[in-house]
């Protein structure tokens, strides 16, 4: 499956419609708020914890057995860079949530190293979010969140948690690592929702 959103080949950058306050970058800046997490695929686990029943856990091999998609999307960082046409490979969150029963509407994403970020569940489903493990045709580099990260390209990139290892379901929209520090709870780049009150 190839999925393209907002990307139609080699566009003329001057004709690109960017979210407000963003500029184009051709590199892939590395932003980090802590030590790089060195997680092998042998030890990597991804766990979804709903309020009903037992948590469901996937090993790396189990994730590799799930149907994968090629994804080509634009990404927008709250530090004002936008990168067009990034290519990823990964598994849609819809697939992980196939057998999860939950009535809660909010998700808290967790990463190795303790990072967290909050999203409404509906922003993770419907073909809008993936666990990705390849970037630009090769394994996802550790600096960019490898072996696997979340990809939620319709929100600012701090929501696309590096070194992802789980999701817990919540009744309320509780703030994550940056959201507790005044970042916007939702983070829509097209509405320039950078900080609380934007």
């Amino acid at each position, binding site marked *: 499956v190839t999925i393209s959103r907002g990307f139609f080949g080699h566009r003329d950058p001057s004709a690109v419609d960017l979210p407000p306050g963003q500029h184009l970058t051709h590199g892939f800046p*590395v*932003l*980090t*708020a*802590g*030590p*790089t*997490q*060195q997680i092998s695929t042998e030890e990597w686990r991804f766990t979804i914890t709903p309020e009903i029943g037992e948590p469901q856990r996937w090993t790396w091999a189990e994730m590799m057995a799930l149907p994968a998609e090629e994804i080509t999307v634009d990404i927008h*960082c*709250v*530090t004002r860079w936008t990168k067009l046409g990034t290519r990823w490979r990964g598994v849609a969150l819809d697939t992980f949530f196939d057998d999860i029963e939950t009535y809660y509407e909010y998700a808290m994403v967790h990463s190795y*190293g303790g990072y967290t970020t909050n999203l409404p569940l509906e922003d993770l489903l419907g073909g809008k979010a993936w666990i990705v493990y390849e970037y630009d045709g090769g394994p996802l580099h*550790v600096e960019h969140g490898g072996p696997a990260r979340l990809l939620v390209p319709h929100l600012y990139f701090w929501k696309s948690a590096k070194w992802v290892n789980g999701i817990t379901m919540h009744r309320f929209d509780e703030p994550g690592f940056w959201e*507790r*520090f*005044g970042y916007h709870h939702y983070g829509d780049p097209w509405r320039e929702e950078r*900080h609380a009150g934007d």
Partner: protein
Amino acid sequence: MEPGDDLAIQGNAVAGSPASIFAVDVTAAEVVCAACGARAPLADEKAYLHGSVSLLRCERCSAVLGRFRRSQDAVWVDLQASAAWQVLLPH
């Protein structure tokens, strides 16, 4: 610094942010980590510059000692894992 911490810089990199908020020079401050109890000079802690945020982590356990952000109309300070800051006053 731990392996994988090549992006961390010297803790003094955050000194300008608290100085602009509290009007004291914290370059020579010592910080006590609430998570592991380590006490270290600011210069020995680990700093990360993340967009407009200066972030300070414990040199021993990497707990977030502080986050500082100054926007056009507000200052954000988060000292979540700081047990204490000792700031020496000028004589």
